[in-house]
């Protein structure tokens, strides 16, 4: 069996032992599959296992934490999509919100149940604390984001504070859980957590830019969401261009009908001409360098670091 099959088997076992009805199990399985089609198979579990492996932990040591992280991230995705009214094509957006919230809660509880068979009590307690802390942080970050939607502009610092709580926090947690279960010492756990944070910020910058360039289907700009490209444009534009951006933003918030192909073209022109893609690339590259510096300073063999280095690219 390859790693994906082992993770799948562990999730199936968890669902079988959960006592959940067949209907619920089937829906959770189909939602897991829907997520994989978009994000690649078991990305969260794999990140957790990669980190566990890098610290010398075996598959058996990291597996339950990996499954817990995968389920936790799925629950977080579902709740995020409901709150943001985003990703309408996904199955949890096609059922009434009450059902989606109910099943997201169920998946979240399953995530904690996955941990319950970890034999090392100290590891169990530490991993539980990681999940509790990221849950609180992510809710806090999401709430700040709601508040920022109605603001005219936010600072770069405010932007990074939020994505560190949300995206960065989730990848940092996956790495931290992997390191804890791998039996790493505290310093190494901290280093891998910091590495995970950089990785999450890099991913979010990439995601923000892709969304901003994909105005036909994504709704960040329409919601007034302060993603990095938008924060950048609000910061650097002045005079006529700033007025144009403000006007486009107001039209977009009124709905896609008001924000037609002409307006999309105008925004795309601002993105390209004003250096938005260059800025996102620069910040992304800076985080990449920091991630590499962290890996350089980690006292584990190059062979064990290899997969983590490949992740950064």
């Amino acid at each position, binding site marked *: 069996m390859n790693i994906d099959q082992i993770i799948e088997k562990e999730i199936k076992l968890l669902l079988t032992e959960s006592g959940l009805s067949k209907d619920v199990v089937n829906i959770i399985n189909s939602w897991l599959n829907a997520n994989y089609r*978009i*994000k*690649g198979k078991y*990305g*969260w579990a*794999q*990140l957790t296992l990669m980190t566990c492996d890098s610290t010398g932990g075996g598959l058996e040591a990291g597996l339950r934490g990996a499954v817990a992280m995968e389920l936790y*991230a799925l629950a977080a995705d579902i709740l995020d999509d409901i709150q943001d009214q985003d990703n309408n094509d996904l199955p949890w957006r096609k059922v009434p919100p009450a059902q989606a919230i109910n099943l997201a809660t169920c998946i979240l509880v399953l995530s904690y149940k996955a941990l319950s068979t970890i034999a090392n009590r100290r590891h169990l307690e530490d991993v539980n604390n990681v999940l509790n802390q990221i849950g609180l942080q992510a809710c806090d970050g999401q709430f700040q984001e709601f508040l920022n939607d109605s603001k005219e502009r936010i*600072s*770069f*610092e405010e932007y*990074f504070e939020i994505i560190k709580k949300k*995206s960065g926090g*989730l*990848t940092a947690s996956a790495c931290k859980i992997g390191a804890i279960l791998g039996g790493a010492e505290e310093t190494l756990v901290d280093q891998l957590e910091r590495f995970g944070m950089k*990785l*999450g910020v*890099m*991913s*979010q*910058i*990439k*995601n923000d*830019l*892709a969304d901003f*360039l994909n105005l036909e289907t994504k709704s960040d700009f329409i919601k007034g969401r302060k993603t990095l490209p938008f924060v*950048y444009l609000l*910061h*650097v534009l002045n005079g006529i261009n700033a007025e144009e951006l403000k006007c486009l933003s107001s039209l977009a918030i009124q709905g896609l009908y008001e924000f037609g192909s002409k307006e999309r073209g105008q925004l795309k022109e601002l*993105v*390209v*001409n*004003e*250096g*938005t*893609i*260059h*800025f*996102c*690339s*620069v*910040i*992304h*590259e*800076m985080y*990449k*360098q920091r991630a590499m510096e962290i890996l350089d300073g980690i006292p584990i063999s190059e062979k064990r670091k290899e997969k983590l280095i490949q*992740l*950064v*690219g």
Partner: protein
Amino acid sequence: MNFDNIAELVHELAKNPNRCSEIIPQVKSVREITNCELDVITKVFSKEELSGNSLAARMSPTLYWF
């Protein structure tokens, strides 16, 4: 990392793509941008023959979480 200064410099370079080699050395003494950060900016602008979309596509990580 002083994001405001980096944003302003990137904007200036994007508006004057032919003057990068002139602007970047001047910046060293004026703005709060480290040599390391300047190296990254230079590196990104040295790929300016690429379209914006190509630049975006070069961003890692390849595993997609968000």
